[in-house]
């Protein structure tokens, strides 16, 4: 299945900002995060098709996954 993975802000450094990736059925958000080498502790908001999701969310063909870093400074 195909999933479009869009990375934001500092996650773009050394990675492709947006790409269509091929994954086996049953792939979760956590699997994609691991495959992209994005540190889990740095992740803030994650959206699938503009809806807020957690790491255990199973992806479907045609999904758009967006991953933002956690911002905490002031």
């Amino acid at each position, binding site marked *: 299945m195909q999933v479009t993975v869009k990375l*934001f*802000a*500092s996650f773009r450094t050394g990675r492709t900002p947006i790409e269509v990736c091929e994954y086996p059925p049953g792939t979760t958000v956590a699997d994609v*995060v691991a495959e992209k080498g994005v540190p*889990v*502790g*740095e*992740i*803030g*908001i*994650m*959206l699938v098709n*503009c809806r*807020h999701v*957690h*790491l255990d969310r199973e992806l479907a063909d045609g999904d758009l996954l*967006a991953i*933002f*870093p*956690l*911002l*905490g*400074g*002031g």
Partner: protein
Amino acid sequence: MSALDTYLTALAGDGLISFSSQLDASLHFDVSLAEVEAAILELGLCPARYQRNRQTISSAGQLALLRSRVAVIGCGGLGGYVIEELARLGVGRIEAVDPDLFEEHNLNRQLLATIADLGEYKVTAAARRVGEINPAVMLVPHRLAFGAGNGSELLAGATVVVDALDNITTRFELAAVCRELGIPLVHGAIAGWYGQVTTQLAGDDISGYLSGAGAGAKGVETQLGNPSFTPAVVASLQVAEACKVILGMGEPISGRMLICNLLEMEFEEIRL
């Protein structure tokens, strides 16, 4: 019409009252500058300092700002700009909460940090600055850390709360106390070139969007730092939100979050 009103009306040639006239009235009638400012606005006149506000904010709106109380939680990068802009806007009472002193690493971005103020409490410097800008505005300094234990007391009576904190744990507590009290909260957070803003109105709950996939109390700012321009941008967006919420104008960013990427100059709006 009171003697003060008669005095002010006689002075206002073009609808404006200068600061020196405001001072004279305060001395002559033995009332505070804030009371003189309120009297000017109630007459539909304008303190001269607000003449460039007039096309944006009516006399009634300026009076609503004067009578409002905004709690600013955190007086660092975001908080310094927020306080400056609220004071210039004419918000009558600012409750400033921060336990920290200025240190040298604050000088790159914190508006209220100066070499002379290193070692000074941030809220003390904030009170002094506001006094220099607009003595009709009161900043109440709270030299302590916000927490679930003192939150309700610190926020009591606030019209709006501005989140200018530097950690996620306290942000959760702040958002929870605001929900409990039904006070609108304008959230802002920054890291490097990036920032985010959203407003939690009564009935909203932004807490699910403040934390990360991990359990950390800090975000990527621990690696990216905070340059001068990001807090200025995000703080200004927050003050625009606070102003709109006080005046009931426009569309607050409730149910949405704006994520700013100043490196690639991209602004994403996400639905919450």
